[in-house]
């Protein structure tokens, strides 16, 4: 009895491959999901929203008011949908969600401005969704200064704000325009691979068990390691197709840059593919039915999406959440893929994520081999 046989491994691989090809629905799902998710996340999700509906409450229209409103409009953050003279109307629109911002310019603003009384403008934001209102709120101070600067000429020049004694220069590196898609699309690659590959391998053994074919398999001399590799490697191909789709669409539809080395990218991806497949396979050695396998897979999905840094910034999470995040393959992959694609990082830059991912893979495959039951007990 050979401890390992290529023939047996090849047999399991080919069998799994043929079954995968025949299962049209699953196959279509594995190709369809990446495309669908990419469109949804890439186009529909934008954490830097523009043209937010704004209502302006004012009772007189002077030069300064007009300049200020024009400045708001030009910033593209605000879209003035209504102007009112009644305070209740503005409040109602904000409360009813018809407007995201209420700008109140008090009576006599221009007169008091000219007198140098530092009159106030109120910007009331619907901050129930901090992400949506954040960008606009941050921008408004600058808009106000710029908009009025032009009017503070001649005798009014004394009112113009003086320049600070130093200047802060900001470079938004790797994503100068702050495009959400730059961050989301590479992250999405990891999420898609996690979702589809963990799910598909998690049912690998449970399906054999439910169909009764596990008994045939166990009655033959096939070894646990042959079953494990034979059942997971066919999906490397599926993963590769998904990667190509996502990377191609990222380039053509969202203009996401690809600065790093394709070879390093391939290494990182391959390691991540295997890790996901092993994670799924480990679940399948534990789950007694396909239903159970899917439920367990969900327990992996939720932390992966929430704690990996895909949805929310990793650095903002409390220590215990970061600890969980560090144990998830997706966390390391996200950092690597963003660094490689957006920053052109080299192997030295991603090593501190490549190594932990390799460690996770080693632990998962060892556990899976130990968990594999060689009898029906």
């Amino acid at each position: 009895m050979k401890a390992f046989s290529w023939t047996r491994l090849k047999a399991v691989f080919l069998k799994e491959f043929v079954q995968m090809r025949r299962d049209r629905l699953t196959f279509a799902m594995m190709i369809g999901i990446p495309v669908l998710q990419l469109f949804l996340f890439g186009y529909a999700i934008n954490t830097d929203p523009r043209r937010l509906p704004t209502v302006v409450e004012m009772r007189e229209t002077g030069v300064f008011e007009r300049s200020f409103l024009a400045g708001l409009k030009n910033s593209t953050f605000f879209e003035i949908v209504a102007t009112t003279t009644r305070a209740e109307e503005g409040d109602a629109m904000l409360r009813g969600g018809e407007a995201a911002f209420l700008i109140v310019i008090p009576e006599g603003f221009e007169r008091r401005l000219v007198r140098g009384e530092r009159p106030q403008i109120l910007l009331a934001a619907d901050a129930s969704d901090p992400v949506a209102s954040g960008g606009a709120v941050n921008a408004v101070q600058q808009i106000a200064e710029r908009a009025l600067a032009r009017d503070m000429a001649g005798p009014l020049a004394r009112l113009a704000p003086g320049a600070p004694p130093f200047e802060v220069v900001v470079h938004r590196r790797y994503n100068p325009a702050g495009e959400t898609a730059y961050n989301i699309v590479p992250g999405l690659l990891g999420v898609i691979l996690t979702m589809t590959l963990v799910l598909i391998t998690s049912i690998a053994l449970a399906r054999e068990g439910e169909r009764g074919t596990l008994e045939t398999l166990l009655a033959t001399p096939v070894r646990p390691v042959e079953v494990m590799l034979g059942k997971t490697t066919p999906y490397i191909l599926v993963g590769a197709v998904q990667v190509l789709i996502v990377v191609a669409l990222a380039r053509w539809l969202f203009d996401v840059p690809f600065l790093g080395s394709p070879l390093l990218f391939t290494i990182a991806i391959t390691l991540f593919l295997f890790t996901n497949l092993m994670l799924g396979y480990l679940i399948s050695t534990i789950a007694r039915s396909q239903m159970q396998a899917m439920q367990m897979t969900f327990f992996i999905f939720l932390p992966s999406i929430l704690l990996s840094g895909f949805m929310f910034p990793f650095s903002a999470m409390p220590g215990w959440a970061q600890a969980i995040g560090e144990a998830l393959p997706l966390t390391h992959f996200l950092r690597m893929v963003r660094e490689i694609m957006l920053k052109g990082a080299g192997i030295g830059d991603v090593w501190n994520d490549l190594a932990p991912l390799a460690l996770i893979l080693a632990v998962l495959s060892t556990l899976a081999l130990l968990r594999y039951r060689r009898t029906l007990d």
Partner: protein
Amino acid sequence: MTSDDLVIDVRGLTKSFGALTAVDHVDLAVPRGAIYGFLGPNGSGKTTTIRLVCGLLRPDAGEGRVLGFDVIRESEEIKVRVGYMTQRFSLYEDLSIRENLAFIARLYDLDDADARVAAALDDLGLSARADQLAGKLSGGWKQRLALAACMIHDPELLLLDEPTAGVDPKARREFWDQIRRFADRGVTTLVSTHYMDEAVQCDSIAYIAYGKKILDAPTAQIPDKVGLHAYRLRGARVAEAQAALERDPGVVFATRFGADLHVVGKDEAAIARLAKAAAERIGATAEPVDAGLEEAFIGLMSGAADNAAPGAPR
């Protein structure tokens, strides 16, 4: 007979699932080349015993050798040399006949896998349908495929778990001819079944109920071992006598064989007296008949109704 001639030589095999003892100290001694029948009510532990023998389950207690290998420590060696046909069709329904056979052949790491697949297809008359999906086959064809699959590596021992359940009589007949040909080549077979016409084809029979082996003997000796005597009542009103006879403590069972009523008991004189008395009451004739294998097994089973608990996990 020395133990070297025994292909299966296990003693005290015991296996429990939770509170249920599915197999309770079962001994089996199956000589080389024999067709050994394995009978018993549903859930009596037949499947579990077969799985213990081929290493699919680990026994809680017991020891022994299969094909000269230790049944616990050397189960991998046993697997290579045993062909196991499961009760339920357990090949891949989404693979074709050829793909299924090729898969199994490669799992046994056979050098001439392709040639063996071709030969197996030919042998079993499956060549013409080789590319049909296994899931689309009828019961009889599935059974042929399963047999071909478990024979592909030329096993020395065949373990067949109710191989002909749900298969038509002609296919069953062909199936048994095939088993007999294997036996002639020296292949040993342990086969579980519920059919009497199959039981008589076996050289020896082990009968198991509630996980315990109750009887183990050459087929021809079974009726004598059970020691039953039968009378046949023939007449228009035999149905009226059945209920009273069944209640009589001297009667093991009274059952209809076609239009007749057979009364079966252990004590020859007592059963003759009871049968004749009953026949007289209803104007029927009472004749002694041979208590055959079927009477013997109904007699054994009437002591043990269907074992309610399922025999094995999954």
